[in-house]
Each structure stands twice: as structure tokens, then as C-alpha cells.
């Protein structure tokens, strides 16, 4: 570990590793710091991603793919299924291998990777940032021209730099997940269960990983926080639907379901991924958007280093790019998310009834939403714009 790097990236998830890779590729000296001993674990993720999004940012390595998803099943509270053919193939990944590879790719581009490197404070003076860290338990200080904060939902690094990152309860899905084995699931269908009894303000997912294994988890919206914990909800679901399953893992986590931070940059600092709240607020998916943000941030950071200007004005290009691309879409998704929080179990049931009898190739997401928004004409435009591209 050197005393100084052009760019220090804090957090080696998909956002951080992608930022490190693109910045290093343009010749910047880059350190990628991960708090945990190993990159990619523990996996706090349902691991779903679409093929078309993923391949925008990386050559897909078949070892990452647990299974290919060709269909989705939506289950109403009473158990009626609406089946939907996936318009584009999706994957359930092995995040432990995937994240590892992304860090490896960053290192091939010249980034120096360090694990067990925990940053506990920052100080900005004279256009440089000092990072205070514990590296394998020993105090260290390193200096950076630009810090890229990719430290996940807790988002403390940006907070140290004065950016407001605190989340409101309603802007979080609290999640619990088990990887279950010895279960009978469709190996190519991702299932969603919608019901206030299973997961208020969220949904249950059953994402197959092959070999009769699946990620089974759920998100409960934070506005219901304090009633029952997500773990209790998950216990109920699993004991009813998969009573004989073997529980290979049990993890907790949280997903930000809001619009991105109003400040994605400040002098000498950029925020990416979950730390920046760059998650699809409707689905909770964040892998590809983290990589999109990481790429943009890495490129802008390396360019700022070349120009010798790490001011907020220079770094704002990243924020502008985000705002006019995915950021714009997610703002729309966020409006739809706010409306989905008003749906009752009766509404879900009605939607399922309206679509019963259609064959899977007749069911489209647009039809689902049309059935859902029949009493909310103002939302139809948002929904159409979102799904026009699907």
C-alpha cells in the first residue's frame, strides 16, 4: 500500500470494482479498499440481473451464471399465478464469484486491491483527502486526490464528506434471505409473491440457482418497520411453502428504494452504487446500475486527474450523465413504487383475476400494469414510458 493514490475507491462491490477498473484503465493510480476479508461474501442479494444490461459493462463469464431465467411467475395473495415470458434473458448469478472477478478485472487494469481495509474517517485539505483506515488491524493513513465512495447502504464515506445520506424508513426495504436446498422449483422461472401477509410493502422472491437450490427472500418496506422483522416473515413463508428445505444460508440486509442522492459529488469525492441510492426502486435491483454508475464515475475521475482539477465542478459531469440516463428512469420508477405501496391484497387479487386465462406469451408487463392502474389514469403515462422499452 502506497502513501498516495490518484483515486481511492472504498468498497469492492460491483460499483467500486467497476469504477476502479475504468479509472485504472485510463492510467490513474488506483487503490480499491474492501472492509471484509474476502470480496463477494457474504452475499446479501437475490443475485438476479438481465443479460442485456450486464453485457454492457463486462464480458460475461459462464462461471458466474447459476441459472438462466426465461420466465417470471407472479403469485397473488390467494396463490393465483400470472406467468410472464421474460422479454430478455436474465441470470441468477453466483455473486461470490462475480464480485471476485470484477475486482480481479480491476486489478488487471492496474488497480491495487486491499481487503481487511476499513476506512473510518476522511479529511480534505489542500485539494487532497487523507483517508484514515485500519488495514489488517493496523492504523494507516493514505492520501487521495479523489475518493470514490462505494461503501454500500450504510454510505458513511459520503457522510464524512458532508453529503446527506441518511435514509427515511419508507425509503428502505428491509430484507432477509435464505438459500434453500432440496426444494422443487422451476429451474428457469423467477417467482414473486405479492401479499401483505408475506411481505408488506415489498415482495417475496424465489430465484432458482440450479440443483434444486434457490434464493428465497423478501423485502418489507421500512414504513412497516418494528411490527414483525423480515426474518419472522421469511420463517413464516419458508415453513409454509418449503417445510422440508435445507437452509444453506440465512442473511439480512437492506435495499434503498428512493431516488439517488441529490449530491452525487463534492470536492474530491464521488458516490456510487447503493451508497448513492442508485437502485431500481421498483424491483430493488442494483447490480447493473451500480456498474453503470461505477463506469461513469471511474471515467470522469480519471479525466479529472489528467486535467489536475478534482473540484466539484469537474466531477459534476458524472452526476449530469447519471441524471439524464438511468437517474431519469429511476425517478419515474420511484413514482410507480410510491403507488405500489398503496395497493392492497384485494388489488393484487383483482389484477391476477384480470389476467387469468391468458397464455404466458399474451401476458406482458404492460398488460399487468394496465390492469393495475385502471383506476389511476395519471399513472398510465408513467407506466407506459417505463415499459415501452421492454
Amino acid at each position: 500500500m502506497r502513501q498516495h493514490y490518484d483515486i481511492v475507491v472504498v468498497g469492492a462491490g460491483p460499483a467500486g470494482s467497476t469504477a476502479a477498473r475504468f479509472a485504472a484503465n485510463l492510467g490513474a493510480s488506483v487503490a480499491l479498499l474492501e472492509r471484509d476479508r474476502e470480496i463477494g461474501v457474504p452475499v446479501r442479494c437475490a443475485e438476479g440481473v438481465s443479460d442485456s444490461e450486464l453485457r454492457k459493462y463486462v464480458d460475461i463469464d459462464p462461471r458466474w451464471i447459476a441459472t438462466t431465467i426465461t420466465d417470471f411467475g407472479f403469485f397473488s395473495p390467494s396463490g393465483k399465478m400470472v406467468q410472464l415470458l421474460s422479454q430478455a434473458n436474465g441470470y441468477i448469478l453466483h455473486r461470490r464469484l462475480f464480485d471476485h472477478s470484477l475486482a480481479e478485472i480491476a486489478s488487471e487494469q492496474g488497480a491495487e486491491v486491499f481487503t481487511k481495509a476499513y476506512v473510518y474517517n476522511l479529511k480534505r485539505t489542500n485539494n487532497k483527502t487523507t483517508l484514515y483506515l485500519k488495514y489488517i488491524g493496523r492504523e494507516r493513513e493514505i492520501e487521495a486526490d479523489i475518493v470514490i465512495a462505494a461503501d454500500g447502504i450504510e454510505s458513511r464515506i459520503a457522510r464524512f464528506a458532508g453529503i446527506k445520506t441518511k435514509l427515511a424508513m419508507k425509503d428502505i426495504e428491509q430484507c432477509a434471505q435464505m438459500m434453500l436446498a432440496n426444494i422443487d422449483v422451476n429451474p428457469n422461472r423467477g417467482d414473486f409473491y405479492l401479499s401483505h401477509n408475506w411481505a408488506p410493502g415489498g415482495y417475496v422472491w424465489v430465484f432458482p440457482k440450479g440443483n434444486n437450490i434457490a434464493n428465497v427472500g423478501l423485502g418489507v418496506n421500512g414504513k412497516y418497520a418494528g411490527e414483525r422483522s423480515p426474518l419472522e416473515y421469511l420463517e413464516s413463508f419458508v415453513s409454509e411453502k418449503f417445510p422440508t428445505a435445507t437452509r444453506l444460508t440465512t442473511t439480512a440486509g437492506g435495499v434503498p428504494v428512493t431516488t439517488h442522492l441529490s449530491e452525487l459529488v463534492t470536492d474530491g469525492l464521488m458516490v456510487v452504487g447503493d451508497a448513492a441510492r442508485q437502485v431500481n426502486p421498483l424491483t430493488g435491483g442494483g447490480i447493473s446500475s451500480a456498474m453503470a454508475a461505477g463506469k461513469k464515475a471511474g471515467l470522469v475521475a480519471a479525466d479529472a486527474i489528467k486535467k489536475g482539477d478534482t473540484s466539484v465542478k469537474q466531477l459534476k459531469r458524472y452526476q449530469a450523465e447519471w441524471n439524464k440516463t438511468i437517474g431519469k428512469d429511476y425517478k419515474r420508477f420511484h413514482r410507480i413504487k410510491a403507488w405500489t405501496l398503496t395497493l392492497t391484497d384485494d388489488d393484487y387479487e383483482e389484477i391476477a383475476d384480470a389476467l387469468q386465462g391468458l397464455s404466458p406469451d399474451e401476458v406482458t408487463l404492460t398488460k399487468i400494469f394496465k390492469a393495475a392502474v385502471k383506476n389511476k389514469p395519471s399513472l398510465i403515462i408513467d407506466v407506459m414510458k417505463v415499459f415501452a422499452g421492454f
Partner: protein
Amino acid sequence: MIRIDKNRCDLCGVCISVCPVDCIEMTETELSIDEIVCIDCDACVKICPFAALSTVSKE
């Protein structure tokens, strides 16, 4: 004050994201709360997905 059940805590960091006074710190192996800074708002207790945090009275 807030009690942390360290055997139950999964070190996911969600509590940190809702803390209004940034008094929670998490290393690879441990969550800790600075009680001097903590204002006992209970946001962390409510949001914890595993119910690993609880409020205990001060006396």
C-alpha cells in the same frame, strides 16, 4: 440505550443508514454504538431486519 445482540447481528449496515446522528460504527466483525452521541430515537431498533437491536432503560 440500545443493546446489540452480537450473535444475532448480521453486520448488514442498515441501522447505520437510518441513524440521524451517525453514532453507529461497523467493522468487519463488530457493530458498536457510541452512547454519548446516541439520542435513543430507536430508528435502528425498528429497521434491523433480524431484530438484533433492542432498547433498554438507562437505570
